């Protein structure tokens, strides 16, 4: 039997040593009438060879973004990943290790997390990062809950321009907790600071702003800082980590908690999972944070060592008073991000950001010159932007699919049937971009 070590003979020997004649005697606590008499109705077992053929057949039914010319983003981005990343995260030393509770035999995982936390702190300008969350959406929801705990107020003001997936997850995380959510609607693709100012009241625990926002536009985070910090509310910034190589570090606009989706840092899209969320904040809020945190310390010989710390916040100690229920996180994805950032280094991440932004600008300029198309907003953007389309975006997308192009994300969901959200990364060559522009022209002339 695959992956079950003992032979039937060994099994019999062991039963004998235990002092029973058959397995059933070991499970007498299970009422007889509940015990299954037949095997479960599942597919017949397959060998590795058979299963690999099945996987090959199934994956053949998918069309993937490395063959199609893809411009999809919306929080999940296809940046180039050096092969060395997978080499490291495939190592069984990291892959099959347990959560690093036993520090003496987990220094590899622990130090890597410490390095990750350091990198996230550097990118965001924050003082403390946790070891990662499930995804950007749940990290945002947990940041809101954290602000409620800190301020003892009950209402979150959220920019209407945040990712709609985040809105959905925030709703399910907060609705049982009596947290009131108010969305401030966008005006022309961004949030007006005065609208935030109007929304804030004495109940406000936090204001959540995403920049670049879901449409790709930059929000005025400096103006928000001034408004929010006139009150006791916390300023939660949702950011794209790649953008931070060139865009304001959230400390510049005095964000209190910084969260976001980390997938773009060295992780494949994988149909949306695993992803990982990052969460970083100011030191003064460290005891309010959810998730694991690694700290540097020493061992009994005074040697530098790393260990999980501030565990008194966590569920295994505090139970229903814990700052979060999170236990397993997305550790291996966080490791991928750490190796990715180490390989890229300062110059590499900067170049990725530069190429993504400049290529996005090239494409946006190109599209805005085609008859029938225009940029939806007149705001600066990073690697993602919104266009107005001459037909329903859903129709346009279907037409482009036939040309092996994933055109982007249809914004009908947010009430804009003639808008398309387009993402560009460094992976696109000028040819890829020109081909997209040509195809957009063609489908409008069909």
């Amino acid at each position, binding site marked *: 039997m695959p992956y079950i070590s003992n032979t039937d003979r060994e099994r019999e020997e062991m039963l004998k040593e235990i002092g029973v004649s058959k397995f059933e005697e070991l499970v007498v606590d299970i009422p007889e009438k509940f015990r299954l008499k037949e095997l479960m109705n599942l597919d017949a077992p397959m060998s590795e060879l058979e299963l690999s053929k099945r996987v090959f057949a199934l994956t053949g039914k998918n069309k993937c973004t490395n063959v199609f010319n893809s411009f999809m983003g919306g*929080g999940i981005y296809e940046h180039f990943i050096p092969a060395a990343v997978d080499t490291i995260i495939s190592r069984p030393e990291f892959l099959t290790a347990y959560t690093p509770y036993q520090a003496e035999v987990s220094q590899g995982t622990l130090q890597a997390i410490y390095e990750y936390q350091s990198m996230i702190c550097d990118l965001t300008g924050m003082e403390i990062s946790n070891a990662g969350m499930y995804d950007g959406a749940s990290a945002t929801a947990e940041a809101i809950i954290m602000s409620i705990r800190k301020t003892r107020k009950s209402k979150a003001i959220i920019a209407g321009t945040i990712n709609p997936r985040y809105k959905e997850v925030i709703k399910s995380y907060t609705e049982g907790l009596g947290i009131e959510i108010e969305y401030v609607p966008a005006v022309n693709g961004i949030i007006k600071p005065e609208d935030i100012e109007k929304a804030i009241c004495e109940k406000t625990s936090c204001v959540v702003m995403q920049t670049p926002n879901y449409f790709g536009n930059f929000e005025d985070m400096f103006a928000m800082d001034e408004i929010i910090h006139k009150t006791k509310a916390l300023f939660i910034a949702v950011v794209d980590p790649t953008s931070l190589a060139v865009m304001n570090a959230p400390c510049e606009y005095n964000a209190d908690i910084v969260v976001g989706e980390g997938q773009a840092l060295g992780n494949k899209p994988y149909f949306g999972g695993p992803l990982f969320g990052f969460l970083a904040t100011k030191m003064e809020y460290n005891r309010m944070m959810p998730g694991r945190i690694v700290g540097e310390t020493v061992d*009994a010989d005074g040697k530098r060592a790393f260990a999980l710390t501030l565990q008194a916040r966590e569920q295994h100690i505090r139970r229903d008073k814990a700052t979060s229920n999170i236990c397993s996180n997305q550790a291996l994805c966080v490791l991928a991000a750490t190796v990715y950032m180490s390989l890229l280094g300062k110059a590499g991440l900067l170049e990725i950001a530069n190429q993504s932004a400049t290529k996005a600008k090239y494409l946006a300029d190109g599209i805005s010159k085609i008859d029938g198309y225009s940029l939806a907003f007149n705001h600066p953007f990073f690697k993602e932007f919104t266009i107005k389309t001459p037909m329903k975006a859903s129709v346009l997308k279907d037409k482009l699919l036939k040309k092996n192009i994933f055109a982007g994300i249809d914004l009908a969901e947010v009430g804009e049937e003639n808008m398309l959200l387009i993402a560009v990364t460094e992976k696109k060559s000028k040819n890829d971009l020109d081909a997209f522009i040509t195809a957009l022209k063609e489908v409008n002339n069909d």
Partner: protein
Amino acid sequence: MTKTIFEKSIPGRIGFILPQNDVDIKINDCIPEKYRRKNEIKLPELSELDVMRHYIELSSKNHFIEKGFYPLGSCTMKYNPKSHEAFVRSSCLMDLHPYQPEETVQGALEILYELQNDLATIAGMKNTTLQPVAGAHGEFTGLKIIRAYHLAKGNAHKNEIILPDAAHGTNPASVALAGMKVVEIKSNEKGMVDLVALKAAINENTAGFMLTNPNTLGLFEPQIEQIAAAIHGVDGLMYMDGANMNPILGIVHPGKIGFDVMHYNLHKTMSTPHGGGGPGSGAVSVVEKLEKFLPYPMVNKIDDKFTLDYSHKETSIGKIHSFYGNFAVNVRAWAYIKTLGGKGLRRAAENSVINANYIMKKLEKVYHIPHNHTYCMHEFVATNEWQKQRCFENLGDKEKCNIKTLDIAKRLLDKGYHAPTIYFPLIVHEAMMIEPTETESKQTLDEFIATMIEINDECVNTPEVVLNAPTTTPIRRIDDVKAVKELNVRFVW
């Protein structure tokens, strides 16, 4: 001294290059001054070889399954098949964007559809969501479903979840996150649910009962029928924490013994790798009356086409993950179920029970096993009590013989094993919880048993060896207090 990657950085060194940018636009034309970062980022500057050496060096400091045995109770550290790693690295699984049109992801949806159904079959329930990405995330999902069920019936007052004091910490934490109240009941002297205490805790506000079964002592709850009847009597729902699902695969269906909702830990039961703490998958199965509350979308099959089904959005608890959960983890779990089938899963369960009983039998005269019911399921809980006692009888020195479970655990590290789960469950003083899983061979178990006997002898004769352990690991015991008091959570350079 171990250097961090930052201390190895050499200005100007490069580990990565991109093709020359072929568009002629400057970054400053994209990002106006106001939005530009003021201080440069500070990532390390290293060659690819530098980076590889660094992380390979770190990797050598980890314990992992292929290196040695993990007798880690409640964690089911079974072997993770390598074919699964090859499968998930198929380009047309890795390079799938979650917003791709359905017709371009048919293979991916087919896998998810089959896994949903297979997990429902194994649970003996109606349907399964694959959206939760961890066990605690699954608990949260299941509890939200319980809450939604009561709200839909207009029973907003039903907001109390009863759970035994032997529960994992995530259980009460998840109840709190789901906006309900925890009512904890004491276990009886056998370590099982105390029916009297349970009945006293049940009232009209009872939303449900949350039970790990087999429980955290490794024992199947024999009164399950009475418990379910009592809870269902007030229209409460039965939640099964599936952390210990491994030993009952194909032996009982949770859905047929009174449970209404359960979560799996696919990173335990279905052999997906733990990854040093994640990613896992916390799939949740439910009985028919709860199906409409599952997170949206579900994967459905209409004629021969697989679709993402949002049709129950109105009644659903909503989304708890941006997309469809940890897809790559779920593919591995699917592959595991396909490889074992009904017969193999049952065999895995049986052998996990046999392996645990074999160790318990061989150690029951060596280590104190407080809740010894003659037989256990997949794990059992021992303590340090006899080691302490025997040492004192031998040496007559209380201080020298102050051997804690922690010390025994640390001594196991010296001998090439991971430690068992210790100080859990909380209802056992100085607990050490041992779970071998079915993938370990008799030889491994025999060696482990011999080692445990050896450690007992050390406790009796040379306790200092145990108290000072470990000495052969990459580092020795750490200073936890310093880690908190002199908090250093990032490298500043």
